[in-house]
Structures are given as structure tokens and as C-alpha cells.
């Protein structure tokens, strides 16, 4: 079973501070990490490989330093590493990014594509689903359990208040959430191999036969009007007492703030 995992290098947002004047992220000195959901995607790919054989390829689109993220998943056990890096890709929104990644995935060949649900720096959760559309694949999102049965994949798809079981014929694309598994740690030997033995293939626009109108800024229909940090929410207030008492207090407060108004 050949599996492609799409990963992204992101700033560790647990450390990120926002520049109050410009409303943008202060990236200086913030360590880069492999996007957490993508580690779960990698782990699942490695488990399926251990079960069914085949090979796992990780693809990342990003600047040259994303090389480190690929080597980190290599140290977890990923076989092949591809970095999509080209000035022509710069400025891509999720539409152009998913098209570009899709072209690369197509070139690699696959039975299954696994993406993390979303990246912690953009929070769109759009890449996986859009890539499935570009590739004409069935997709299952928010996956929390995976089972491969012959030529189909059966997944538990998380909902807000439960889950549903969805199956799809392979090849397919799934996006996964952190409940799915516990990512393994890179092994010491894996770290050594990642930097001494493994090769990160760098592919540009020409290598993945992209339509130049569909990549980078040109291929991006999204226009960003403004980015800003939302106003911090005021401190919440906890009501105490029995349910009845709390309900009464709540009604009083809602009236005070004119959310509820007495009619007549």
C-alpha cells in the first residue's frame, strides 16, 4: 500500500506572540515544528505500512527550510521525502496550494493520501478536501479511526456529538484528527539516517507539470483584505448556586444588558 502524507512546517504557536501594532505574528525566534495534526497523519501512514507493506512518501510545500520538517518525519520512519519549493509557488492560497500538492501527489502515485485536519498557523482545514476535489478522489474528513478492508477504507468520522462510519473505495484521501493515534518519537538512528542517508527531493513547478495560471499568487482567488488580532474577550463570569438560582441570575443579567426585554 503506497501512502502519501502531506505535511506542513509551522511556527510553534504555543510560543507565538502577536505584534499589537501591526496585528501580525512575531515569527522571530519562534521555533518551527511539524504541524501537530500532520504528525498524526504520518503515524497512521506508518502503521498502515507496517500492516500492509508498501511505502510512505511525505510531501511538503514551503520554503527551503521546510527541509527540516521532512527530515523530522523521516526520523519517524517515512521512506521518501519531497519538498515543493519554487518562487513560482509563492503567495499561494489554499486553492493553489492544494492544486500544486495534488499535482505532486499524482506524480508520486498512491493508494491513499493522508493529511492532517488543519495547520495551526492557518486553521482553514481546506487543503485536504480541496486536494481530493482536484484529484477526483473520495474524501473522508475528521477521521479518528482507520481500517483498511480489501480495496476499501472504513473510517470513523468525528462529529461534534459523536461519530459516523464512512467507507470509501481506494484510492482515497482522508484528513485526520489527534484522537486517531499517538505519534511515535523519532528514533536516534532515524535522526542519523534523516540527515546522513536520506535525500529530500526538491521539485519546482516544472517538475510537477503545473498549469502556471493555477499556482502561486496568480492561481489564488483569495484576496486578503486585512489581518488583525481579535479583541481579547473580557473575563467571563461564573454563576453559582442551584440550577434555578443560576437561571434566575442569568435572566436578571440578560435583562440588565438589554438582551431580554420585558414586553408590555
Amino acid at each position, binding site marked *: 500500500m503506497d501512502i502519501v502524507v502531506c505535511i506542513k512546517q509551522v511556527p510553534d504557536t504555543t510560543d507565538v506572540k502577536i505584534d499589537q501594532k501591526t496585528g501580525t505574528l512575531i515569527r522571530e525566534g519562534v521555533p518551527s515544528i511539524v504541524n501537530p495534526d500532520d504528525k498524526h497523519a504520518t503515524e497512521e501512514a506508518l502503521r498502515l505500512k507496517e500492516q500492509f507493506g508498501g511505502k510512505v512518501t511525505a510531501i511538503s510545500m514551503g520554503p527551503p527550510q521546510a527541509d*527540516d520538517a521532512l*527530515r*523530522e518525519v523521516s*526520523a519517524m520512519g517515512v521512506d521518501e521525502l519531497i519538498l515543493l519549493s519554487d518562487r513560482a509557488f509563492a503567495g499561494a492560497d489554499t486553492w493553489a496550494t492544494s492544486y500544486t500538492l495534488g499535482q505532486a501527489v499524482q506524480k508520486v502515485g498512491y493508494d491513499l493520501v493522508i493529511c492532517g485536519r488543519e495547520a495551526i498557523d492557518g486553521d482553514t482545514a481546506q487543503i485536504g478536501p480541496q486536494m481530493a476535489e482536484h484529484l477526483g478522489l473520495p474524501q473522508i474528513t475528521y477521521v479518528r479511526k482507520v481500517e483498511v478492508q480489501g480495496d476499501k477504507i472504513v473510517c470513523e468520522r468525528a462529529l461534534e456529538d459523536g461519530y459516523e462510519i464512512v467507507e470509501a473505495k481506494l484510492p482515497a484521501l482522508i484528513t485526520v484528527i489527534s484522537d486517531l493515534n499517538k505519534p511515535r*518519537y*523519532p*528514533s*536516534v*538512528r*532515524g*535522526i*542519523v539516517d*534523516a*540527515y*546522513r542517508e536520506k535525500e529530500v527531493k526538491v521539485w519546482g513547478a516544472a517538475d510537477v507539470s503545473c498549469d502556471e495560471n493555477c499556482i502561486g499568487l496568480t492561481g489564488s482567488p483569495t484576496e486578503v483584505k486585512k489581518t488583525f488580532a481579535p479583541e481579547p474577550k473580557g473575563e467571563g463570569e461564573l454563576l453559582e448556586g442551584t440550577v434555578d438560582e443560576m437561571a434566575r441570575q442569568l435572566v436578571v443579567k440578560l435583562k440588565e444588558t438589554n438582551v431580554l426585554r420585558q414586553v408590555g
Partner: protein
Amino acid sequence: MEFGLSKEQELMRKTVREFAEKELEPIAADIDESAEFPDETVKKLGELGFMGITVPKEHGGAGMDEVSYAIAIEEISRICASHGVTVSVHNSLVCWPIDKFGTEEQKEKYLKPLASGEKLGCFGLTEPNAGTDAGAHTTVAVKEGDKYIINGSKVFITNAGKADIAIIFAMTDKSKGTRGISTFIVENDFPGFSTGMVENKMGIRGSIQSELVFDNMEVPAENLLGGEGKGFKVAMATLDGGRIGIACQALGIAQAAYEASIQYAKEREQFGKPLGKFQAIQWFLADMATEIEAARLLVYKAAFAKWKGKSYTVEAAMAKLFASDVAMKATRNAIQIHGGYGYTKDYPVERFYRDAKITEIYEGTSEVQKMVISGSLLR
């Protein structure tokens, strides 16, 4: 000159740190309290390759450099010094001498399972009446045909009681003093091998130190390591590397004490402001940060010298002498910053303080390090 770490070394730090924070932190205080050896996490460390970090791949290790090894022990000890010494002893006092002095057969038979973490090792040098004074050993090995019969005992042996394989030292010719010492690789199921009392210690309580007892223990002659009479040389060379490991342990403990102090100085308020606003506290923190940085430079430099095949005896002694002293100061002042709370088990700094003390003692006391250093100055 280049002070930065390589990408490989950086990924090593990131990986160990994540492992230590997620897997060791939740049990560090518990194993200190219960003095239980953490079998499960030591096994996990082995599976990930931390039990043969610098051992070449063909002998079951990861083939990494000495600086990466230093980083691993530092990061493990930053969270749990007990795991730190368990891993350090196994790597530098057991795997290293077999890799350095062993025959191909010995490497195949013993180094492979040790480096892959399948088996645990210990190093038996110290005796009840011969700690630093290695020439006064009373453990004796007598050759009979194709085996040695060994009698005697060892004390304070880290990992003993849990270890499958021990590197031990015995007199093959008492009349020659230190030139009459030989090294043997022994298995814990050799006839006549047993372990004795487990030490009840002040710190590093999640690691195990026990007696080794040899009662007419039979050891095949091919288990002699490095040749008859070469034991003192093997021991001294091995301890040079071991000292880097303990210096890393001290560094990790000091770093932990410093980080706990920074956090406390920001959180704790007195007289209407955080402790960190008081100059007395700022000075503690400034001294800690500076001394830890100096210790780190000495430790990494010793590891670097070993990695590059240069002489590192003096560098290792300086690193251990200085880092263990820094660990004592940093942990003592961390408790001072924490005040009464620091003296309780509600905060980890009292554990750091107890753990730090041993780094001034084992694998050569601070006084021995000064002997080693001054010996090289006055030659």
C-alpha cells in the same frame, strides 16, 4: 570557530526534550518518592536508540556523535536525573569500553544487545574498601584452564540488580598493583554471580545502586576485556568518558533548577510585585544563567574533543568539576528563591538539590577531578 549545533544535533535535542517532558516528567517525582526503578521508560528509551547512542550501527547502535550524546543526557536529566544516570552509565561505562576494547566476538555477543536496549549493563569497579583507590581492590580472578574463577564484591554499582551484563574489575596479579587489574564481561546468570543490598539514597532515587557479589564465579577466558593486566587502563579511559556523562547530568539538573526559578520568580508575588522585580532574585538568576552557560560550554567542549578523537581527560575532569559545582549552587539557590515552598515536595527543586549532590561524588569526586587536572598541569 563555530558554537552552533548541527541540524542533526538540534533534532536530537528536540526529540529527547519532547520524550522527557511527555514520558518522564509524569513519573519523575513518583519514582523519587518510591525509589522504584522505571523499567518501562528505560525500555522505551532503549527502543528509541538511547542505549547505544554513539555505538556504531554495525554493532547495534545509532552511530551518533558525542555532542548529541551529551545533549541527550542533559535533556533527560533536566527532567529526571535518575533516568539520566541510568542511561549515562549504560552508554559510557558499559557500551563504550566494549566498543573500544572488545573483540569482534565480544561486540557481537554483548555490545549488540546492549546498544539496542535489549539488555541493560552495569560497571563494577568500586569496592567497600576501595573507592578512588583502585589499586587496593580485593576482588581476585584466578585462571583455571579456559576460565577465570572470581571472588569478591562491589558496591554502589548503578544498574546492578537490573542489569543483564556487567563490566567488572578484578586482580589477576595482586603483586603488580594497578598493573595487575583485569576487566571482565560477565552475565548475571554466570554461576556464582549475585546481587546484594540495594542502596537507600538521598537522591537519584529512581535509579538503582546495588552490591555485586562473586562467589567462585566462573567466567570464560574469552570474556577478558582488553587483555590481562590492562584493567586500570580500561577503567581510567572509561571513566574519562563517564565523567562527561555525569557533567551532562549535572548540567541538566542545574538547567531544571534555573527554569523552575524563572517561572516562580514570575508567578510568586510579595509586597505587591512578582519576585522577579526584586534585585536579590534577579542576581540569583543572573548568576545561575551565567554559570550554567559556562558549564555547558565546558561540557560540550569535552564531548566535542572526544567526538573528534582528541585527548579529553582534562576537559572531562574540568567539565565534571565545574558542572557539578554549578548544579549544587543552582539547586541551592533555586530553593532559596522558592523560600519555604522550595523546601517542600510540592515543588521539584528540593529533588533537584538532592539529585545534584551525587554529581560531586560518583565517577570521581570533585577532589579527584582536581587531582586529574593538576596532574596534567605539573607534569
